[in-house]
């Protein structure tokens, strides 16, 4: 029996979605499964699904090989708790349950192909699934929260002594605190994190949790928008306790693959302006060194301060009005008519203002692009019809 389904909630940052089938009869004769916990290392699990190789249900079996944080390749940027199993996981298994003792202990979702590694498959474990279900219980998916800082292991004996630490293998060193993130203005680079919500942080950045040692981020992983964590730190050799409100998700998702989004753009005088994000960079693969720098070091070098969005001259609908703009393709827009461009909306606003000339200054050395209003107006219908442009902007 096949029935149409619709998406109730989708969480691209943890590769999970909840579907609904409106026809109540669809589920007749089926029973809902319960969720289990984190299966023990070496315990046996079974993977159910409809992978390649046939049409009927397939079951493969293996053991839990490793419990660790892994990058979720769907977004390409988020890392969460992941369980590695050695049961075969093949294309088509994704989304299927991984079972142990009649309970769902995970959702099969990614793996390595045979030419990279043998018998390495991954499932999304129940803490991630439960978090997703709890997050959407208020009718809205808020995404994960993040500390908004980077930290380093503290193994070096000289560094430990210099920071005033005991020889007890505890503590990690804060490297960067990102602007706009949860910890901005509270934690400082050079602080040593000793405990999170009372759980001692080992020098390899793990904490004891559920009879296991897991990355310290797992504490934050289980929190929600509006929650908080307590950090015990050592600052300039003195212990302090900090409370970090986890208000709002990690604001800089520039590097993560985005889905279900229409590309945003402004077309003016045949020039196409777009914000650069991971999807844009994957689609265009620009060689422009400056654009690559601004994108690659967006978070690390705090580019977001001046450019909450990186607005790029992404394409040119060739027309007499813009023949001299070609050299600036893939340039990042710095100013339009003297206004610093921070977001795509700024571009649309400046072009909407009446002016004799629109002067577009790109980041770095180079001459400005100059468009005369008369020329842009004269070219407008011509460009729209020649290039079948149905919409001049999508903000």
């Amino acid at each position: 029996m096949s029935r149409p389904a619709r998406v109730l909630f989708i969480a691209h940052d943890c590769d999970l979605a909840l579907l609904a089938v409106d026809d109540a009869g669809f589920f007749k004769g089926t029973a809902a499964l319960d969720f289990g916990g984190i299966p023990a290392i070496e315990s046996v699990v079974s993977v159910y699904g409809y992978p390649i190789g046939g049409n009927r249900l397939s079951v493969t079996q293996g053991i839990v090989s490793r419990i660790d944080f892994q990058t979720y390749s769907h977004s390409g940027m988020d890392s969460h708790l992941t369980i590695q199993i050695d049961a075969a996981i093949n294309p088509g298994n994704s989304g299927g349950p991984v079972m142990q003792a009649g309970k769902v202990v995970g959702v099969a979702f990614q793996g390595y192909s045979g030419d990279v590694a043998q018998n390495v498959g991954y499932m999304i474990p129940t803490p991630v699934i439960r978090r997703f279900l709890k997050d959407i219980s208020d009718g809205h998916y808020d995404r994960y929260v993040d500390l908004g800082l980077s930290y380093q292991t503290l193994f070096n004996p000289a560094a430990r002594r210099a920071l005033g630490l005991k020889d007890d293998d505890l503590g990690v060193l804060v490297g960067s605190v990102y602007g706009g993130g949860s910890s901005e203005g509270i934690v400082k680079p050079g602080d040593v994190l000793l405990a999170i919500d009372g759980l001692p942080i080992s020098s390899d950045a793990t904490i004891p949790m559920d009879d296991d040692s897991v990355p310290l981020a797992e504490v934050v992983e289980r929190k929600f928008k509006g929650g908080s964590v307590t950090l015990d730190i050592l600052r300039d050799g003195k212990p302090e306790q900090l409370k970090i409100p986890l208000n709002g998700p990690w604001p800089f998702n520039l590097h993560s693959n985005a889905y279900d989004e229409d590309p945003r753009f402004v077309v003016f005088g045949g020039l196409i302006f777009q914000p650069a994000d991971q999807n844009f960079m994957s689609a265009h693969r620009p060689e422009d060194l400056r654009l690559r720098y601004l994108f690659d070091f967006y978070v690390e070098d705090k580019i977001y301060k001046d450019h909450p969005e990186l607005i790029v001259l992404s394409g040119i609908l060739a027309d007499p009005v813009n023949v001299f703009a070609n050299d600036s393709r893939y340039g990042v827009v710095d100013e339009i008519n003297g206004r610093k461009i921070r977001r795509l909306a700024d571009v649309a606003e400046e072009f909407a203002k009446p002016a004799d000339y629109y002067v577009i200054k790109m980041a770095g050395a180079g001459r400005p692009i100059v468009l005369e209003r008369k020329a842009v107006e004269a070219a407008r219908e011509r460009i729209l019809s020649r290039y079948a442009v149905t919409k001049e902007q999508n903000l």
Partner: protein
Amino acid sequence: MIPRALAFLLLAALPAFAGATPQPKPLPEKPADPASASILRVNSTNQAYDFFRPWTKKAPYSRRGLGTLIDGGRILVSAELIANHTFIELEKAGTAEKSSATVERVDYDANLAILRPIDPVFIRDMKPMSLDRGARVGDRATVLQLEPNGEIAQTQGTITSIAVGPYPLDNMGLLLFRLSAPMQQRDGSFTLPAVRDGRLLGLLMRYDARSQTADIISSPVIEHFLAEAGKESYGGFARAGIGYAPTRDPQLRRYIGLNEPGGVYVTEVLADSSGARAGILPGDVILAVEGKPIDQDGNYEDPDFGRIAFSHLTNTISHPGDTLAFRVFREGKTLELPVRMEARDSTKALSESYVVDRAPRYIVLGGLVFMELSRPYLQEWGGEWWKDAPQRLVYYDAFQNELPKDRGKIVFISQILPSPDTIGYEGLDNLVVSKVNGQEIRSLDDLAEAIKSPVKGFQKIELEEDPGILFLDAAEIEAHRDTLVKKYALPALQRL
């Protein structure tokens, strides 16, 4: 008796002489090639430093090319031929008579060098060649090569363009002759003289076998180099330090109110450059230099070479110390700005584009290797170094002109030699250093000074990026010092 191959070559060479020498020469005598008395083979053994292990050199290799004897007992070659030389040998065509040579003057910007034989008697029976400065597009030129048996092989070609183009080592734009000629590689390099009627038109520096075109270091560039070499202090090639864009766009011209027919739009003026000192600003339009109008693409009408980039006026026709009159359009007004031309000291660049004949500087501290960023370091990553080398360093190199004037050198940890002091620091290489023991680091000299004053017994190294900070125990570094030197065979812990 003449070997068959030689007889064939002489026949092949004859057409080249048809105009100059109407009577065929009797075969048994040595060919009276006027060029052979001025050409000798130059064998240079070169050995570059290894920027991944800055305390050592890479394996030596040899390059062969042809030198041209010019007045004063000097031998002109390309600088590339003898870059990083350890030993230079001159060999007379045909006789295998040899002498070693020293470098009297080298300019890597212009890719030219003057050699002198150790024994002046060596070149006594040779004749210096003079310069031919009058090339025009369409002229014929002859490239000279030496056969293994010492005979001269000649290749005729046509000069297809004369333009300012990039020279290899510093990407400086200087006048090039482009010659279309089918050639074979004979000597392992293309440092070869191009001549006309027994006079030197230029030296080959590149040959593209597919398009069969050679780029020739032009005689005006050679003339400038020799004039500077004759001075008490060598001044080199001056630069205005200005980046510009064409003004062909009528919308741009109307926006800035430019009614003159030509001019180029200044996009960039390098700090401390000749242009900056003269007060040229980004957004200015350069209309003329020394009364010669500049067109919308940045060319002027040269009496000898036609329309070529005006940088030929500033870097080759003028000499460092000369003052050139720039006519500049700024905000509706026309200004006359005298620009005193100066050469740029390439060693002062934030990231040097070449480090030749010099050892790279480094400091090893407890297994951390510190260096100053330079392009040769990045080039160690191979053909696609701008993609493969650490990207932050690539960006520093590419955008160095945009950094604050007082940024100094980029000091970074190039690698970590594992030692008891570096436990936990594995993989932390290619990180840029900002401060050491609280002191700003803008050169390795700053670093050498800063590490003399550890803070509470620790060397505190602050980085521009994660992990942000590293500590080393000063006393333990000393304790492990001899082992480190021995294990990694370091000749010295620093070279400044």
